[in-house]
């Protein structure tokens, strides 16, 4: 779930308020978004993908953490903005879609093929 909106990094662009599909954020009094409805967060990471300032952190747990993680620690581990970086969004980056050639996968119900040029990605 969403755990952090970094006051230090946020540029108050409202992007997360706009794109969150479950309406988790509200614009705060000073423009920095508030996590107004954390329990509605579906841990889809889309807000992180759209945040131009790497100011958000979605913990992979689908329930709130007892305490929000330490922002400096996350930054130190390179986790702030890591999803946006991996999908290649942001100026000067190569779109992840351009590189998204997955491993060979079995068809539903089948075994893994030994090797196949027909690389696909499947959800």
């Amino acid at each position, binding site marked *: 779930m969403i755990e952090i909106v970094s006051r230090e990094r946020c540029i108050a662009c409202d992007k997360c308020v*706009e*794109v*969150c*599909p*479950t*309406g988790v954020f509200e614009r705060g009094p000073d423009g920095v978004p508030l996590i107004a409805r954390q329990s*509605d967060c*579906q*841990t*889809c*990471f*889309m807000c992180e*993908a*759209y945040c131009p300032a790497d100011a958000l952190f979605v*913990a*992979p*747990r*689908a*329930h709130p953490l007892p305490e929000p993680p330490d922002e400096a620690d996350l930054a130190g581990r390179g*986790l702030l903005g*890591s*999803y946006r970086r*991996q*999908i290649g*969004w942001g100026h000067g980056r190569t*779109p*992840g*879609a*351009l*590189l*998204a*050639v*997955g*491993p*060979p*996968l*079995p*068809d*539903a*119900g*089948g075994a*893994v093929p030994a090797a196949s*040029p*027909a*690389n*696909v*990605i*499947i*959800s």
Partner: protein
Amino acid sequence: MTELDLTADVLVAGGGPAGAWAAVKAAEAGADVILADKGYLGTSGATAAAGTGVWYVQPEPAARERAMASREGLGGYLADREWMARVLDQTYANMHELAEVSRYPFPVGEDGAQIRRGLQGPEYMRRMRVRARRAGVRILDHSPVTELLVDSEGAVAGAAGHRRRHDQAYRVRAGAVVLATGGCAFLSKALGCDVNTGDGALFAAEAGAEMSGMEFSNAYAIAPEFTSVTKTAFYSYATFYHGDGSVLEGAGSTRGRSVIARALLSERVFCRIDRAEEQVRRAMRLAQPNFFLPFDRQGVDPFTELFPVTLLAEGTVRGTGGIRLAGFDCSTSVPGLYAAGDAATREPICGGFTGGGSHNAAWAMSSGTWAGQAAARHARALGAGPARRPVRGTGGAGLRPSTGARQPYREVVEAVQREVLPYEKNYLRHGARLAPALAELDRIWAQARRALHADGAETARARSAAAMAAHARWMYASALTRTESRGMHKREDFPREDPAQHYRIVSGGLDEVWTAPEPGLITVAAAS
């Protein structure tokens, strides 16, 4: 607060891929289009948050034949070759448009040709939003539809809803409506699926439409315990273990998934993706960065360390049941009402089973295209009248309670979840467990019909709760009717496929739920 009153030729409810394609194609056909989504066109739904394979097959007869034949048996021979052929054609065309019109950055193979067999959800849906805007579609984000409007003849004539960020009711009077609201995953927190609460199926039923294939609604996806990331395909490279480190025999990502479900009833199940070579591991990271988020952020190496897994319900998102279609134009039995994507039944191309995104993605873009085009034709044929038609709302449960009592939506959501999420009820099906679950769901529905209600922005939540209750009842009524195992629907008390039940099951009704065999099913040749 004054209501926002709009008119359009076509209203599309839902902003996932099916809704986006419907809106684009209706607009390109000359219609004035409004798309309303409960979230945001671009991030809403099961696709945007994921990556998906696409059932993309070169228009070469042998390849097409193989593609159509490959899953007919898994689907219980309930799919239809003509639908499959049409979807393969349409998907091929739409993927070309994604490359040419939307300039989607497909990977390029060694032969220099684009590899168009998959889509990254965020990139795909961001570009679909841009295309919808450029086509002139008016987009209402954060504006859940809460009911359909009908004219005096009962034809669908628009929809009403609520704009959450403005706390304002709205209605759109339209010549035709496309429901592309997704399937129903019962707020299980499966990746991207919490917006998929089956709302469109409830709206359709209230307007008089039927469902089909609702017994094919027991999809469960593997995810690391306590997370949302339901990317099952890569688990084909995994081994599953008991807590003591011994191998859980028979467990697997595809046919062995029920073994995992059974084990999870009494123990934790662990996993390690230990059959992936270095090259495969690298490809996985490129193909699905989000698969690794739970691992990287919890400091787990999934290739060398054991991690606990769970199964999350994906209901009719990955299951194939949904609103019954009346024709290739994705019309329903109600004039002016069309359905596309997971909101519609996917049986025409999948029968009673689908695995990963492949067919589902192809279905969304194809059915969305057809529904949008047909809705535009329907609206045009009506002329200028639709905006002036007197209309009435059709919404019942959660919107217009039959008594003055007020039941909170959370109570209904939790009661429905207790009946549909447990593996022993929905996944490992048995008549002795389905029947009491259905009786309880009937009770939940009856109470909700009397008292479930919420105001303003919460109206949509009450409607979603009602939709989940309705969905669950069609599911279990259909599952009890099908006294055999076919497709994903496996009955422990009827473990075999029964040739006498080679038909689709139609269902419907709200206060009284009914099921019936589909009349005149077009069967596939292989079924004999």
